[in-house]
């Protein structure tokens, strides 16, 4: 079979090009494959089996017991390096005053840190109560769902935390939280919120807000432990979570939550 010189030349060029392409393709597949293997760690554990030897933290707040002294909100700021200005709160206390004419007056002056002064005279009040608020540490947390980089996460103990070294400050989580418990720290410039005093939990100390609450209105505990005070409290009282319709899996249970509360 005779071939002209030019076609033989073409074939040689074609075959060396083919070899080059083959090598390039192999290298690409190898790199892609390796990187995929490294990242698949994430995919493999996305269906994470929970370690049941660890506690699964929950919170209960007894509205009947709250006297709005503001100690919880104040202690939280001291413990957790939150600026004292009235724009950033990891937890706060609200006062609801339902008047006889049906209107609802809600206030939270400086988050309740300085206590409350009664503003509505007794005769106009139908009922009135205080509602302490804090991060609900949701099991199906919308803030964790929307974080684009994985800086907000649910720890194996059920505490929702923010990785301050990784957060890019996009504020998506602040928008996604239905309870308004997140803010951007003005100095650190990353998302910030109640951590259930994770650093204290690790040392077997109570969160600061619960340590100082004078009436024991705030409680925390291990939802997996049937003998814990928290679980006993949940059993003995009628509790509700905020925004149950949003299905956030909130683990903050309120006793005696009235229908006016959002």
């Amino acid at each position: 079979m005779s071939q002209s010189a030019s076609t033989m030349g073409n074939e040689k060029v074609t075959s060396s090009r083919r070899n080059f392409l083959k090598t390039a393709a192999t290298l690409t597949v190898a790199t892609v494959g390796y990187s995929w293997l490294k990242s698949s760690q994430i995919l493999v554990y996305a269906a994470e089996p929970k370690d049941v030897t660890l506690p699964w933290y929950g919170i209960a707040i007894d509205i009947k017991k709250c006297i709005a002294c503001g100690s919880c909100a104040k202690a939280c700021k001291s413990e957790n390096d939150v600026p004292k200005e009235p724009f950033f709160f990891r937890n706060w206390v609200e006062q609801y005053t339902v008047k006889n004419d049906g209107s609802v007056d809600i206030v939270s002056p400086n988050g309740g840190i300085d206590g409350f002064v009664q503003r509505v005279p007794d005769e106009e009040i139908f009922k009135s109560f205080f509602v302490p608020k804090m991060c609900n540490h949701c099991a199906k947390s919308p803030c964790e769902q929307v974080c684009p980089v994985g800086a907000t996460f649910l720890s194996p103990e059920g505490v929702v935390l923010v990785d301050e070294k990784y957060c890019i400050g996009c504020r998506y989580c602040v928008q996604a939280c239905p309870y308004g418990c997140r803010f951007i720290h003005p100095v650190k410039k990353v998302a910030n919120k109640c951590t259930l005093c994770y650093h204290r939990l690790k040392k077997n100390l109570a969160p600061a807000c619960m340590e100082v609450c004078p009436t024991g209105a705030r409680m925390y505990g291990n939802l997996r432990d049937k003998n814990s005070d928290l679980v006993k409290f949940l059993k003995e009282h009628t509790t509700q979570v905020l925004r149950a319709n949003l299905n956030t899996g909130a683990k903050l249970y309120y006793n005696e939550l009235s229908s006016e509360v959002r």
Partner: protein
Amino acid sequence: MEQHYQNLYDILAHSQGYIFPNEIDLQWGILIVIYPFITGLVAGAFILASLERVFKVKILKPTYQIALLTALSFLLVATMPLISHLSQPQRAYEIMITPHSSSAMAIFGFVYLWYLTVVLLLEIWFDYRKSMVVWSNERKGVMKWVYKILSLGVSDISPKAVKWDRKLGYIITVVGIPSAFILHGYVGFIFGSIKANPWWSTPLMPIIFLFSAMVSGIALVMMVYMIISYIRKKSIDVNVLDSIGKFLFFVLILDFTLEALDQIHRIYVAEESFEIIKLLVSGKLYLTLFVSQGLIGTLIPLITLAFLQFYKHQIKLRKSMYFIVSMLVLIGVYSMRWNVVIGGQLFSKSFSGFTSFKVGLIGLDGTLMAAFWLILPIAILSFLLWLLPPWKMVEEED
């Protein structure tokens, strides 16, 4: 910092009703308003271009390259408002290396890259390749090498190769249409999937965003075509304008229908958030919603375009009317973005109060920065039109 706190004290003094203590400061400001505006322009301009290519609307041919280059100029700038609004912009790369798969925002990096490289750049490349090769042969010096590099050194412009340019370009355009839908639809999804915010949370949000994007893109291309023709002292083909105007009219009707449907549903169903939203719409959002978006941005353009479908006036008046209509439409779509982004943050998630929004002038989050990101694409477009002039392209020989 002191100034920042002083602003917050002012806002606190002006807040109405009860807001959660952390809600005083609005999180997403003017930069997040212009981001969907810019990506909307990209998606809309691209879809107009695809009309010519895929649906063979020949009359739009003069606007084809203009639409693509406009889309590219705005797309190149699209990430910048996002990055400049982050409070840790130097960590922005994290969204590319560890995207959290459940977050719509994480998709952004990859959808953007896909659209930029596989769709827009490739389509422009296939369209211009032959011209770039010819230009690299004709020019000397730096420009010769610039065009050579841009054409990736593929210098084969035989009819067979050029036929493949067209075929591959066609495939890319077809792929590009759903890609454009995803590029802008996901922005709507970012808002629409936030169940915590009832002003945003609706399945219609991605579709509303998409249709208003198409409206803005079409209007932009119409404006750019008129301005470029004016600068080049070439006559504007009024048939092209009529054609674009017709598409603008129909898409505007669809857009208006969708937005009206969203509001009608909200009013009829009157869920728990309805009371506060009613106050929002009749109060703080009145001007931007009813006057700017509704009247100026939708109703007047609709009436004018409807009129122009039936009565074809003298050409000069028609051209002015189209120009004004495009401008009004762009104002309307910008207001829509404002109403969605800012409006959603003005009322508290307690449904019991309002905060207020003070737009700063300077700073990474301010009006000047936003204006810069909006003007930069125009500069880029001018550069691209100089580098890849559509009117100097080497025509097909068939």
